[in-house]
């Protein structure tokens, strides 16, 4: 093929959503000459669905992205208009920071961060084709005919691949409302042999806040003071707002039931699979028929934007039915619809095509991140984008892949789930997906990941310095807590009841007792009084969990030993004895990277694992 390139870049990122922004910034931070190509630069960092970042497990993802010097945490800190820790009544490992965003502020913050990133060029354009030579990505072709040579590309096209919007009986091709879908790239991926599937997601109508009767609604304020996402943010400066809470009722449900035949999911117009975790209101009414009401949060989309996002009533019913349905809801009787809700169907690539660096096995240098891999959610997309961006830059530089495992991060859990199990519905993160949930917390994301990021080269100087300072303070405080000890009798004198067993306990051990916190300990040992802020918070959590953490860490060591039993990428499963055809097929599809990854594939029996292990051990050079 004649290589008449118009432009050259180390890494090209296709798409400017949450995955694309993180991927481009990460690649550039790594020192790669990076180009981000997106249809319209104005929509960089657009929140296509709900105007919020974080939540249960998702909040942890954002903290992890931030710990690796990603953008999302800093952007939401600049744009958040209501911060709330979810699950506050539960323990720290399962709490999730969440914030609602002013969409315009978020876009602006994201754009500012991208513009400030050295080595990153933003380019408006539509990628139509991929140029592959000898199984390796050589470059891309834009719709206007320009050809860009690159060492690696990250495709983050979200819902744009053959996107098809459904609103009642109407449907039209689009990437999201107001944006054209992408056909060329989808065709190119298909031509390269990538198995494509179809998924569906949806969004509710947007309402004019000036027409909502706020007076009758219960209002919910955020946390005061708001807790920032980013380890770099000291405090939130954006004005904070409340949102309204209302509920559907039997009349709402009656309207929905009467019009179900016009809902694309029920009329058969949509056959692809939607997320069970974020069901449309028609799904909720059908599946939870015994519930007489469903909660709706009315979330302002911006400080000086009257648009309100009714969280909880995602729908693809016809526009006039949406109006009729919403009018039955208290507070929304006269609400004007600015834009009806809709469902969108789009292509995704079976993520089992990827390795743990998010590079495709089929085409070297081609990375995929975000919804194209079958996930849903900004945070899931951002985490993948970050990882793919780092790895695209490392691949171009000839460095080994940067991989996170299930004990490192939720990002590691997600990527491992995706590339070994694939997904049949939009994949969303949950804390229950993490085996080592007590370790993968929001408070210690920096301790878990920033050192790795520093070693990989994706963490900048400012964050590095801040992290080192915090880590040193933590270490010193831990040391002090371990050194201060008291006998049960001495503790009793201070009003602390422990077993009068004569065993001397350290201040650190005492933190594991219910009702004993740093403040209480500082009453005994005044020198503990100056431990405060993040350090105190993290110590309190670790101290409280210490027994469980020790057990979990033992499990992590066992898991990592197993993980070290690598399965060669070129393993021919046909030559492994004692495997059923079904198991063989599953393994060949997933190509697990390790014995542990193989174990996570449904239907793979311990027996099959033993056979795999035996086979691998027999291979020369694998005398593990």
């Amino acid at each position, binding site marked *: 093929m004649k290589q008449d390139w118009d432009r050259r870049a180390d890494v090209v990122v296709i798409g400017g959503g949450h995955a694309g922004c993180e991927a481009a910034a990460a690649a550039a931070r790594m020192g790669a000459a990076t180009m981000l190509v997106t249809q319209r630069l104005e929509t960089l960092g657009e929140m296509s669905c709900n105007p919020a970042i974080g939540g*249960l*497990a998702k909040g942890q993802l954002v903290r992890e992205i931030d710990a690796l010097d990603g953008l999302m945490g800093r952007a939401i800190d600049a744009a958040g208009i209501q911060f709330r820790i*979810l*699950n506050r009544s*539960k*323990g720290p*490992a*399962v709490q999730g920071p969440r914030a609602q965003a002013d969409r315009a502020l978020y876009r602006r913050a994201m754009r500012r961060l991208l513009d400030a990133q050295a080595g990153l060029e933003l380019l408006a354009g539509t990628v139509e084709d991929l140029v592959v030579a000898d199984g390796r990505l050589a470059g891309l072709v834009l719709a206007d005919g320009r050809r860009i040579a690159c060492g690696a590309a990250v495709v983050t096209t979200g819902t744009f691949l053959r996107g098809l919007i459904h609103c009642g009986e109407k449907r039209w091709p689009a990437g999201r409302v107001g944006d054209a879908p992408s056909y060329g790239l989808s065709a190119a991926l298909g031509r390269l042999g990538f198995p494509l599937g179809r998924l569906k997601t949806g969004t509710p109508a947007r309402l004019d806040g000036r027409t909502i009767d706020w007076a009758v609604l219960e209002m919910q304020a955020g946390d005061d003071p708001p807790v920032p996402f980013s380890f770099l943010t000291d405090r939130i400066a954006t004005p904070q707002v409340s949102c309204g809470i209302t509920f559907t009722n039997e009349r709402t449900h009656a309207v929905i039931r009467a019009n179900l035949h016009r809902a694309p999911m029920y009329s058969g117009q949509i056959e692809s699979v939607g997320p*069970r975790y974020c069901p449309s209101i028609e799904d909720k009414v059908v599946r939870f028929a015994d*519930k007489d009401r*469903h*909660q709706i949060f009315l979330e302002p989309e911006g400080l000086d934007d009257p648009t309100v996002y009714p969280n909880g009533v995602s729908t693809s019913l016809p526009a006039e039915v949406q109006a009729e349905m919403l009018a039955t809801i208290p507070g929304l009787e006269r609400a004007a619809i600015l834009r009806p809700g809709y469902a969108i169907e789009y292509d995704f690539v079976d993520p089992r095509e990827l390795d743990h660096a998010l590079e495709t096995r089929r085409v070297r240098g081609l990375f995929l991140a975000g919804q194209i891999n079958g996930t849903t959610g900004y945070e899931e997309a951002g985490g993948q984008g970050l990882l793919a961006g780092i790895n695209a830059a490392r691949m171009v530089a000839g460095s080994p892949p940067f991989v996170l495992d299930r004990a490192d991060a939720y990002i590691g*859990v997600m990527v491992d*789930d995706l590339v070994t*199990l694939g*997904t*049949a519905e939009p994949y969303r993160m*949950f*804390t*229950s*997906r993490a*085996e080592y*949930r*007590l370790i993968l917390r929001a408070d210690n994301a920096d301790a878990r990941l920033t050192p790795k990021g520093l070693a990989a080269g994706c963490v900048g100087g400012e964050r590095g310095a801040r992290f080192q300072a915090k880590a040193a303070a933590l270490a010193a405080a831990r040391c002090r807590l371990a050194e201060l000890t008291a006998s049960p009798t001495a503790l009793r004198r201070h009003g602390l009841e422990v077993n009068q067993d004569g065993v001397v306990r350290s201040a650190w051990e005492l933190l594991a007792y*219910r009702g004993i916190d740093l403040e209480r300990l500082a009453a005994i040992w005044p020198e503990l009084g100056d431990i405060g802020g993040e350090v105190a918070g993290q110590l309190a959590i670790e101290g409280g*969990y210490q027994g*469980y953490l020790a*057990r*979990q860490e033992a*499990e992590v060591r*066992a*898991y990592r*030993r*197993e993980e070290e*039993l690598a399965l060669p990428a070129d393993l021919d499963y046909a*030559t*492994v*004895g*004692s495997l*059923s055809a079904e198991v063989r097929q599953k393994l060949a599809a997933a190509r697990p990277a390790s*014995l*542990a990854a193989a*174990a*996570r594939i*449904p*239907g*793979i*029996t*311990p*027996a*099959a*694992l*033993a*056979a795999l*292990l*035996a*086979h691998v*051990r*027999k291979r020369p050079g694998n005398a*593990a």
Partner: protein
Amino acid sequence: MGRERLFAYAQDDKRGDHRGKVLAAGMTDTIFALASGAGRAGVAVYRLSGPGAGPALAALTGRDLPAPRTAVRARLRDGGGDVIDDGLALWFPAPRSFTGEDVAELHLHGGRAVGRAVAERLLGLGLRPAEAGEFSRRAVVNGKMDLTRAEAVADLVEAETAAQRRQALRQMDGGLESRIEGWRQIVVGALAYVEAAIDFADEGMPGDLMAGVSARVSALAAEIEAALADNRRGERLRDGLHIAILGAPNAGKSSLLNRLAGREAAIVSGIAGTTRDVIEVHLDLGGWPVVVADTAGLRDAAGEIEAEGIRRALARAQAADLKLAVFDGAARPVIDGATRALVDGDAVVVVNKADIAGGGVPATVEGRPALAVSARTGAGIDALVAALEHEVASRLEGGGAPPLTRERHRAAAMECRTALRRFDPAGEIELAAEDLRMAGRALGRITGRIDVEELLDVVFRDFCIGK
């Protein structure tokens, strides 16, 4: 496929805990072994398993493979075409075979020369002798059975008494597997609610979730507790109930053991203090397996060696499930203090030498009925056997549920019980979830859902060739 699952905890099942031990061998080669007992016999059964089993059978018989699972008469020939033997051949193509692989069986005459010739021929065809337990291991590897069933195969082969055979058969039928799996399902079910309460907190979960979970968890903990409090019935049935014969020197303990065994197992002599060590005899008492140990006589020892024997006897008395306290009916007094001190609720009391006893035999010792016997004449022995049988049965007979039969079952069940007891519905919910996760993993280890490698090593270590 399991993609429909809502929560990732289901993956916990699969999360292994491998300790990096080396599997004995790969599974692509073809193995053979004499599956029946060694030595001269009317029939000897050879079993072949692996991809080479079919070609080997065809080469041996010089004809096409027989119809699956049908015995056919065949002349087996060696490499030079000479007939080795005339016997039966069976062909079990994968996966419908014991191991899940291609299996061939040869039923031949049980001579040594035949065995040698068959082995030579199979080695020549590229097969290799099986290692201990390798057939069962392959069956587990191929998902033909879980670990408890595989263990039961070994137990069945080892079974010496009817009760052992019944227990092994029941376990082989999946009795224990389904009991453990039932427990695990309760844990998984409880965990589902807890995980839902964590991850879907804002989606209107019913408030009383934890109450229901808590009740189920306590009930399960109590059930596992009860299963653990069975006095190691299943393991004791596997190993045999231990009975120690105790008594003064020359009370006739060894003679009594010989009477019970019906053979000369211990050195019997009239000189006091002959038995200086502990001698064991395995007996089948009405279908119950027992291990009877003869011990040194209890007295203020004369020599150093005898003192050591007495020390061992006392240790044996401590460890025994049942004590047979023997008093000398011909001695004065009949009841010696050292032996009487050992009589408790786990003791069966006999007064020996009833034939020459000069009277004065008590009806009870320490509240236990005393049986008058004579090891020499055999008088009263039937009554003693009946009494022992009764005591043994009361210790080995259990309720309806299939018992834990191995130490590793017990260890895992205890780990599960500990995690369930730690489960605190009023405490932090994520820690409650953690306890349930641990409980589920512990149970998974019993049936072999996880920890594959290490387990396989442990489980198959004690197997004998050909099973």
